């Protein structure tokens, strides 16, 4: 098994054995259900596709929150408990540690996200939506969660305090999202630049509506790559401190 696979296996075992994994899972699913009931179903009759779109809007935000909270469990916790020493005195590269931790969290978050599938399935009780719309929405949610997690991994590499890691992660994701309203009031060319980095409002909107656009996928993958690369560089630089 590769080093990355080894870390993923250990991490997933840890998620299932410690309360934090279950707390995050319960929180995400509870919020998904409440928000679906409160906003997607609403009180007024709506088109099925609108119900699904609104569900994805809120579920996307919940997935982002889940990604932010996971930052605590990534690299910061490893440094907080001192177990990073085991990894960094073993013949394993910083990039492998980052990738292993990131992918394990992503697998867990993806599983959580897919557990909410029963919510859009409920729409079939009184309405009809296309499976393509559902598929695109879930792909978007996974990409959004993956990007938030990657930003969180970078935040988690910056500090050894897990709670500070969550705050930093929330701050980074919040700042990226804040670029959208700033972009709306800024002058060109800042308008496009600022709007472009909004994780949810700009790039998740098409997925909410069941549209799969390559540019959004490329944006998310690019953000993931840059964030993980930055996290790896931060870890490598710790030897110099």
């Amino acid at each position, binding site marked *: *098994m590769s080093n990355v696979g*080894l870390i993923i296996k*250990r991490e997933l*075992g840890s998620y299932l054995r*410690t309360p934090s994994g279950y707390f995050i899972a319960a929180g995400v699913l509870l919020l998904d259900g409440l928000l679906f009931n409160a906003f997607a179903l609403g009180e007024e009759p709506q088109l099925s596709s609108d119900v699904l779109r609104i569900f994805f809007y809120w579920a996307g935000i919940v997935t982002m929150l889940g990604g932010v909270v996971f930052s605590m469990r990534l690299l910061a916790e490893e440094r907080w408990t*001192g*177990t990073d*020493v085991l990894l960094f*005195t073993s*013949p394993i590269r910083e990039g492998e540690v980052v990738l292993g931790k990131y992918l394990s969290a992503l697998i867990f978050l993806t599983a959580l996200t897919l557990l909410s599938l029963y919510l859009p399935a409920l729409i079939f009780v009184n309405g009809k939506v296309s499976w393509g719309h559902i598929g695109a929405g879930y792909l978007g949610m996974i990409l959004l969660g993956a990007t938030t997690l990657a930003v969180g991994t970078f935040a988690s590499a910056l500090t050894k305090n897990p709670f500070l890691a969550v705050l930093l992660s929330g701050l980074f994701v919040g700042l990226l999202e804040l670029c959208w309203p700033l972009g709306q009031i800024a002058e060109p060319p800042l308008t496009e630049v600022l709007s472009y980095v909004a994780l949810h409002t700009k790039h998740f909107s098409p997925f909410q509506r069941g549209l799969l656009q390559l540019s959004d996928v490329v944006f998310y993958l690019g953000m993931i790559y840059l964030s993980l690369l930055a996290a790896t560089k931060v870890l490598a630089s710790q030897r110099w401190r």
Partner: protein
Amino acid sequence: MIVVDRVSKYYGRNAAVRDLDFRIEEGECVGFLGLNGAGKSTTLRLLSCLLLPTSGRVTIRGFDVEEQPHEIRKLIGYLPDEPPLYPEMRVEEFLRFAGKLRRMDAEKLATRLPKVMAQTGLEQVRDQTIGTLSHGYQQRVGIAQAIVHEPALLILDEPIQGLDPVQIVEMRALIRSLRGEHTILLSSHILSEIEQTCDRILMLHDGRIVAQGTEDELIHGAAEGPAGYREALSAHWVELEVRGDEPDVRAALALEGVEIVELTRGSGDVLRVKVKSVTEARELIASRVVQAGLGLRGLKRTTSALEDVFVRLSQGESEEEEVRA
């Protein structure tokens, strides 16, 4: 095996270690002795590739810690002052994980794991969750993860820290049993620990090596050290138990080349006196005490003078710094 060449490490403007210069040969068991904050852990972290020196060069078997950390990591097993353990994992599962991290295949692990658990006394708790183990057992798991892959170099930072007396004896025996299989570096601020376990001692104070050599060399003054060090080491140390008044005892021991280092009151009117002399003076001291009409309850040569020397060297360095300041 290990060459440390004029190495300094600064955290901001503070020097954690300065101008370290030493060599350690294959198979040696070397102890880093120093007070808290002396630079022991930083030195071991530099050797473990966790930190890079601000200046100077460290090589292990010819591999540079800066350029080839990956190669060095294949050679080392490291136990930091707090063992790096995942509390939710079971002992055997954790050791298997640690072995795989060090590139051990399943076949090798299958033969090695029982041996390591037997060696570290973990067989009975192999299926127990690490978080439920006592501190002593957790420390054993810490050592087991460091030796599971049979590293050439074993680095143990304060391995007896936080252990109770029984656990200390067991840990000491465990470390002794590892000698010969690995080159061992261990740090401690407890002299007796280093004395009983290591072939060679490096005394650190305020980030510098203030003395290095074997225990015998340190006691008999043949080791490397700063000015005045040999003189301090070559002194003869005697402990007395004397019945009498303090002024009379001081008067009786007012001899040329003899210095009372410590005088404390024991039970009743018995005084405990620690004396340093330039030459062997036990007979002279005994006769002077008896001639003065004092009761000589006991007299013995201090078998290990290292502790006094260590404390003096540390104090001497601090005083020198105060004068410089």
